[in-house]
């Protein structure tokens, strides 16, 4: 029994090390916003925590397959009923893990993401740049509030300045869509009759041509051309952004 436990623990530790090394590999698309940095950090944190849990199951199964095999039903195993201390320890450990993950990164991350209790969306309600995003089957239109600039249709570039907080006020005129920018790791649904919002802080330059995660993508099934409902995003310097705005106005 004791030798088996030690061997299994060593096996678990080895598997866990391999798993954690895998967790260090490059998993994420390009980082475009502050929120994306947070997401990558939290995702990796949960992965570091989750891998040892996964390997507990894997190592016990594989170890038992190798060590406790029988050729048939002739012999019975020891009558361990699992009462007393072992299940209580298990319950305490899993309970602590669940409550711990619930508090950090769950509730703490949530409080960072939400600025109001009764609103419908992510981030601050105020931002430097406000863009009204309206979904309809099967394209988006983006109205730069106060700028008299509107970008309509698939394939038309949405240009955003770097180091700015940008609020998307999201709406829909027909069915439910969802505004998702993978490089920003943020998403909010577009609901007819309700204005939802998400505020992101851009921190890196990037274009769709170089990094396909710089795109606005509909993430809620909206019918026929759902898969084609996307707009490229270009994050540029403030000067380039002002030039772009001016060029759009002159059109």
């Amino acid at each position, binding site marked *: 029994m004791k030798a088996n436990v030690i061997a299994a623990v060593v096996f678990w530790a080895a598997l866990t090390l391999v798993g954690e090394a895998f967790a260090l590999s490059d998993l*994420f698309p390009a980082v475009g916003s502050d929120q994306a940095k947070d997401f990558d950090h939290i995702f990796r944190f949960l992965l570091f925590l989750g891998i040892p849990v996964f390997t507990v199951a894997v190592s016990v*199964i594989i170890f038992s397959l190798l060590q406790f095999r029988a050729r048939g039903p002739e012999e019975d195993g020891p009558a361990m009923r699992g009462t007393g201390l072992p299940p209580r320890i298990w319950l305490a450990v899993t309970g602590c893990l669940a409550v711990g993950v619930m508090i950090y990164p769950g509730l703490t991350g949530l409080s960072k993401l939400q600025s109001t209790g009764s609103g419908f969306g992510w981030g601050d309600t105020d931002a430097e740049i406000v863009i009204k995003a309206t979904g309809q089957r099967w394209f988006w239109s983006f109205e730069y509030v106060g700028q008299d600039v509107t970008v309509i249709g698939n394939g038309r570039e949405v240009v955003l300045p770097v180091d700015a907080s940008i609020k998307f006020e999201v709406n829909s005129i027909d069915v439910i869509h969802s505004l998702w920018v993978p490089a920003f790791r943020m998403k909010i649904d577009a609901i007819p009759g309700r204005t939802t919002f998400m505020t992101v802080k851009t921190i890196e330059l990037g274009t769709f041509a170089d990094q396909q995660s710089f795109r606005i993508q509909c993430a809620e099934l909206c019918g026929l051309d759902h898969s084609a409902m996307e707009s490229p995003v270009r994050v540029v310097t403030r000067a380039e952004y002002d030039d772009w705005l001016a060029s759009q106005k002159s059109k």
Partner: protein
Amino acid sequence: MYALKSVAGALGAGLIGFYLGIGGLGAVRALAGYDAWDTEMSITFGYVFGVIGWVMGAGMWGAWGREWFGLRTYDRKAPGWQRYFVFNTDHKVIGIQYLVTFIVVFLLGGLMAMLMRAELTHSGHQLFSNAQYNSIMGLHGIMMIAVAVAALVGGIGNYAVPLLIGAEDMAFPRLNALTYWLIPPVALTLLCTPLLGGIETGWTAYPPLSVLTNNAQILFDVAIITFGLTSILGGLNFVVTIIFMRAPGMTWGKLPIFVWAMFATAWIALLYTQGFAVSLLMVLLDRVAGMSWFDAANGGDPLLDQHVFWFYSHPAVYVMVLPGFGIALEMISHFSRKPLFAYRYAVGALLGILGLSGVVWAHHMFTSGMPNYLHGPFLVATELISIPTGLIFLCALGTIWMGRLWLTTPMLFALAVIFNFACGGVTGIFLADVPTDIHLQDSYFVVAHFHYTIMGGEIFALFGAIYYYFPKMTGRQYNERLGKIHFWWMFIGFNVTFFIMHWPGIQGMNRRIADFMSDLNTANLIVSLAGFFLGASFLVFVFNMVWSWIFGPAAERNPWRARTLDWQTDSPPPLENFPVPPVVRGHPYDYGVPGSVHALFPGRGAEEPPRPPSTFPGAAPAPAGGGGGGGGGG
């Protein structure tokens, strides 16, 4: 030919009902001054009367309906294989009817998955238009949901629960037959949806899209409302059966763990299935009766549907997975030849999941634009549910530890359930925590996650259970070598396909799309190839089942040397299961406990420990005394 009579009667009466419904509605509409034909309203009425005609024609009229008019009822006593084609009230026949029907549906749904993966081998369009892809995707979704909800509950549950608790049959046998006979019209109706343009809303059918979309939605709505009805009636039947039909001495503390799992499952099906039906009924009323539950311009709210829908559809994942846990733990205990570790904690976990299942639904809606104050409570409840789930793992891992693992095909499947669900459980944490879910929601990460939990957790358990009960059901033994080939083929194919699928999701590949970004070409090609590999594994299964059912060697009464009651009767069991009603004395899993007896058959001696397989004189069809013959080597 009773079978032909029954099926032709069902089809004929169904068609007559269908046209009567359309005609009756047309007459009323014409009298009121409208056009006699209104596509959606006519189909709805035709469907309702058509389904009534179908079940009556299938034999419900003779076995049940005549009674309502004071007439004498009769049963069609069909011999041999024909009993599977009539309105049969034997739970064993119904279980096999369910299993075979849903294996067919599963293979059809799998074929759709192959078509989807063929389209997704490369970005751009390969085989299908967007409309065709959406239709195939929606059908794959709803057919597999139906398989996941009903194959294990209706198939293995119906077959095994009365045997495990020592009952003659379910509490309401005719109701049980009705729940099965409602299934074929549902399947046929779903398969008809491409004729009306195909469902383009996926299986979730969110309005306003489902209100605005083509006429196929109406078929989807009425079919799934019917399917919900079978789930509710089945749930009711299981609850009553497990409470009232247990053999003398089968106290709650001695109930096999699969029965406990079915008990929790049945309560969930009974309490929550209405949610799905109601959400579809509201969509139906919006479409047919011109109401505006979901039309914001007329005072409706699109999010109402998601709350009602997920109020069922989250508990539904426990309808899928709890019986999977139950049968996996059952098999793990028998094949490890050890008592079920921490049995009481496992029961507590099943009931804990039942309790929590109703308060976690909105974690499917974290990015839906629901009010911000709702996220916190649902995050907390969702994280809490990992505690009872963890106890299931304790139970499984504790049981195999130091056991005498007999690695038959069902045991391999049961261990795979634990392996796969561990992966699905860990990825679930990322989706339960709002900060990570915002990015991952509606991405391929979610697709990978729920295939790991539902397919890896439940469908693996279903296949394990089919192998486990195959000798009992058919009286023949399956081919162990082919079974193991199927297992390893499916296990490897499944894990390669769905493990890699997480990555495109993190990279930003949204789900339910016919086309994707070109930088994900390689990953998708690998997933598609692995998916085809996985799909091919089921050919081995089908061959093994068909071949062994016809040509397999005769099975013993108890090839697994298991202690539970289902293995103490003949293979296949007689009509009312046990020649002598059993009396339960001890715990079902007391392996390695000297002198322990699970059940006695008064007048016939104890079922255990005497090892010779035939305890009932003259009942066993198998060659007597064949020790370890059918089970194959480990």
